[in-house]
Structure formats: C-alpha cells, structure tokens
C-alpha cells in the first residue's frame, strides 16, 4: 500500500456488540481522505454515537479495526478530537483554561499555549469571554468552546456528535457557517511547526492539512449543507447503506440552501433515510 492510500481515516469491517449476538454496528467499512468533511445521518439508535466512540478509541470494537494514517487506533488520543452532543466543559475552568487543557497535557510551552488559545477563541468568536466560567455561557457558546478545545490539540480528525442538535434554528445556522469556516482555517499542522503567516498563524498551508471532520447529525439538511459526502447509517444492525457525494460549489453559503441542486440532493437523502426507516420498521414488525 502506498503512503497516500494509508493517509486519512480507514475503518475496516468494524463491528460492535454490547450484548452478544445483537450487533449495533456490523461490518462497517469506510475511508475518509485527509481534509475531508463527512456527515453521517441515521435514525436514533442506529449506532452513530457508537461509531464515533469507536473512532475516538473510547470503546473497543468487537471485530474489525480503525486506522488513522495507517496506525491502528488502540485508545483515545489528542489526534482525534471529540465534541459530544452536550457540551462537556470543565466547569471550574474558565473558557481560556478549558481550551488550554489539551495543550497543557501535550506540554506546549506557556507562551505558545496562550497565543494559540487566544487565536482559537477569536476564531470561535469568544475572545471577550476568555475569563468566563462555562456555567455562564449559552448552549451555542459552550459548544463553540468545546470545538475550540478539541481543535487546540491540532487533531488529525475532528469527531462531532450532533453538536448543534440542541440549538435553535438561527444559532444552528450560525454554527454551520462557523464550523465550515473553522474547517477552512484551522489546520492539523504540528504545534511545533514554525509560525509563518502572522495574520493566520495556524491556518493550514495546504488544503490537505485541513482537519478531517466526521460529523454525526440527524438533520439531513445540515448534513447536505456541510458535508462533502453524506453517509446514511442503517439500523439494526448499523451499517453504511449509502455513500452520497455532495457536489455543491465551495464555499457553501446559506443562499445555497434554496438552490434547486441543494433541494434535490436533500430530497434524495431524505428519501433514502425514510426508506431505511421503513425497511427497519418492517423488519422489526416481523
């Protein structure tokens, strides 16, 4: 295998059972290229969170394996940042110290750490709240901090588990644009790399150095708007039943949500999810 083929995230016949004989995920195969933005949609209980936890290394597969740049994932690590559905900030640490947590663990020197935290907080639009405790923040702000905290370690892959599920429509739209922007701006270059551009000190020099994003959502519109690919996860057992390329122009804008191409693609995915749901109901009715 060439190094280009090894790069990125590979999932090979991954299965997960919590109770023997009842797989939640079965034979999931997936390859995500470096810098790709992939969205996963599926019914509640289809195993979306389970899939992300396996990639994050927070739980072990029953069979199969997860590879990142050719190395098998054996446990959690800062190369795979995870943002959970409900923000899980450290309540006693202020916003800046929350974002700095991973950098401290990595042993990044103080000056570099503070400078990166400041830049990330500006990037997520929370520079003015650096010293606030998480308890004082709104849900959307907390999720932004969670994302900044995960990005601080410069992860190869960013795993997002329904990060905007609990937000209102307006905030959600803002966050969609925001995560797209973050994906453009924040690279995965090692934290030790020399700072080149003082205007965007952490921006990736090369699009291939962008973060790879795997985002779970149950909102089909969101998936089509954000993803370069949308994966449909079937239920019982969970497996990837559809892999749809989203060939919409980049960068994405909110107006695009009204374009015929977008609406058509959204309808297609919705039909697929619905068909999946019907099939599942029919199976369980037997």
């Amino acid at each position, binding site marked *: 295998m060439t190094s280009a083929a090894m790069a990125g995230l590979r999932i090979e016949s991954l299965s997960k059972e919590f109770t023997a004989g009842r797989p939640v995920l079965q034979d999931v195969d997936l390859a995500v290229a470096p810098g790709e933005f992939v969205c996963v949609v599926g019914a509640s209980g289809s195993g979306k969170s389970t899939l992300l936890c396996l990639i*994050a*290394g*927070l739980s072990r597969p029953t069979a199969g394996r997860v590879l990142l740049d050719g190395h098998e994932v054996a*446990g*959690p*690590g*800062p190369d*795979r*940042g*995870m943002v*959970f559905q*409900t923000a*899980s900030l*450290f*309540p*006693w640490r202020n916003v800046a110290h929350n974002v700095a*947590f*991973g950098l*401290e*663990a*990595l042993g990044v020197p103080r000056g570099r750490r503070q400078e990166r935290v400041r830049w990330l907080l500006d990037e997520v639009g929370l520079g003015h709240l650096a010293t606030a*405790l998480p*308890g004082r923040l709104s849900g959307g702000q907390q999720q932004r901090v969670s994302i900044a*905290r*995960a990005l601080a*370690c410069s992860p190869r892959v960013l795993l997002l588990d329904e990060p905007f599920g609990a937000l209102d429509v307006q905030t959600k739209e803002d966050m969609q644009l925001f995560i797209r922007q973050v994906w453009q701006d924040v690279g995965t270059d090692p934290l030790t790399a020399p700072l080149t551009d003082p205007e965007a000190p952490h921006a990736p020099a090369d699009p291939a150095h962008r973060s790879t994003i795997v985002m779970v959502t149950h909102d089909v519109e969101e998936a089509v708007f954000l993803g370069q690919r949308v994966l449909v996860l079937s239920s019982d057992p969970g497996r990837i039943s559809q892999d749809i390329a989203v060939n919409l122009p980049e960068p994405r804008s909110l107006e695009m949500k009204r374009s015929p191409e977008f609406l058509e693609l959204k309808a297609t995915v919705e039909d697929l999810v619905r068909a999946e749901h019907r099939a599942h109901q029919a199976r369980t009715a037997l």
Partner: protein
Amino acid sequence: MVIMQSTSETTIAPPGARPAATAPPPARVKLLTTSVSSRTAWLLRALSILGPLAAWWALSAGGVVDPTFLPSPSAVWTAGVTMAQSGDLPSDLLASLGRIGAGFGLAVLISVPVGFAMGTLGWAQPLFEPVIGILRYLPASAFIPLLIIWLGIGEPSKIALLVLGVVFFNTLMTADAVRQVPYRLLEVSATLGASRLRVASRVVLPYALPGIIDAMRVNAAAAWNFVVVAELVAATSGLGYRITRAQRFLQTDRIFAILVVIGLIGLTIDIALRLLRSRVGRWTR
C-alpha cells in the same frame, strides 16, 4: 396531586362565589425549595442561638431548676472567666486542639488518598469497601479499653481513637465525592491526551474537592466528640478531663462553661471549613 387540589378547591368554594361556567383557576404549584431574603436569614440565625439561650436564662433565673443542676448564664460566664484567668482553660483547650490536629489530621491523610483510590481505581473499591463497611459500624468508643491496653493512657491511645472514629467514614464519603465526577469529563480528558495522573490531579481532584471538604466538615464534628470522650475516660489534661474534675466537685457552672467553649470551637471549625468550601467550590454556583 395537582388535579386533586384544584377539584377540592372547587367543591369547597361557597356556592355563588364563582360562576359555575367558569373553569377553576389553574392550580398554583410552588417549587419545593424556597428562599428568604438575607435579612430574614440573619434574623433566623440570631433566633436560632438566642432563643435557646433565652429559654436557659428564663429557666435558671426563674428558680424553676436548682442552680446546682442548671447554673444561670451569668454563673457560667463567671466560672469561664475564672478558669480562663487561672490558665487552666487555655492549656486544656490547647491540649484538646493538639489531639484533634494530630488525630483528625492523620485520619484525613489516610482517608483522602484511600477514598480517592476507591473512587477511581477499579481494584481499590472491592478491596477496601467490605472491610471498611464492617469496621465503621464498630463504635469507636468501644475501642477505648483495648486502645489503653495496647497503647497505654498517653497521647497515642487518644490519637488512635480519633483516627478510628473518623477514618472509615471519611474514606467512604471521599470515595463517594470522587465517584460524582461525570464519566463524560474523563472521556473528554482522554481524547485531549491527558494521562491518568493528569486526569486525577487536574480533573477528578478539582471536581471532587468541594465534596471532600464537605465530608471533612461532617467528620470534624465527630472528631470533637471523640477527643472529649477520650479525655473523659483517661487524661490529665484537655477539656474532657476538666469536665471530670468539675464533676467531682459538683461545679456544674464550670462544666457548662467548658461545654460552651467546645461548642464555640466546633462552630469556628465548621465556619472555617465552610468558607474554604465555598472558595474552592465557587464554580458550583
């Protein structure tokens, strides 16, 4: 509950008070927890102390009870001042405080790490829980005779009693506080690359610290009990010893004075730990 309340209200209402066609007003439900203004709170605090004090004064000054059994507040004050001036009270107080410091301090030094381990390490819980679960039901005071046989009547037996009385409870309560840390935070820490040691010191400890201090606050009160008990049984100094001396001469006023001192010291320790807790746990509000 709510429905029952509103129907009973309708039936109780006098006829004509409310037109029959009008639906009953929605039942008003209050939250279980209520709060009062800080002024009211201070008034109630004062009442909590001054009320019993006034009752005591009324009982003794009214001559209802023989002063040998219940001395008046002023007699107690005089006895306290006399003891303080003779130097007995300060030296006894220091002796008792020294024992608390050593015994309670030792108990905390043992129980917090063990409790922390029980709350975090898979093997520590099944290893320690059963034995501590049994030992904590053995009344520490019943160990006094044994401790005197083993360690003599000097300081070691008293410190050992304090440790025995406090260490098991404080261990289990610390373990409980540590277990309150949300699993999600441990997962997040791991995905951010934190080692187990770092998670223990930077995540579990800060999260559990307010609870650990609360446990210490509860057990500090128990420690006070045990030190006085130990001194009542066998000692040549300390507040408990001073009580037995006063008992021999039927000096109830002195006994009361010492009890007041014990109460005040206990209150001081409690307030100090409370302040520490609200400082450390500022983020919990």
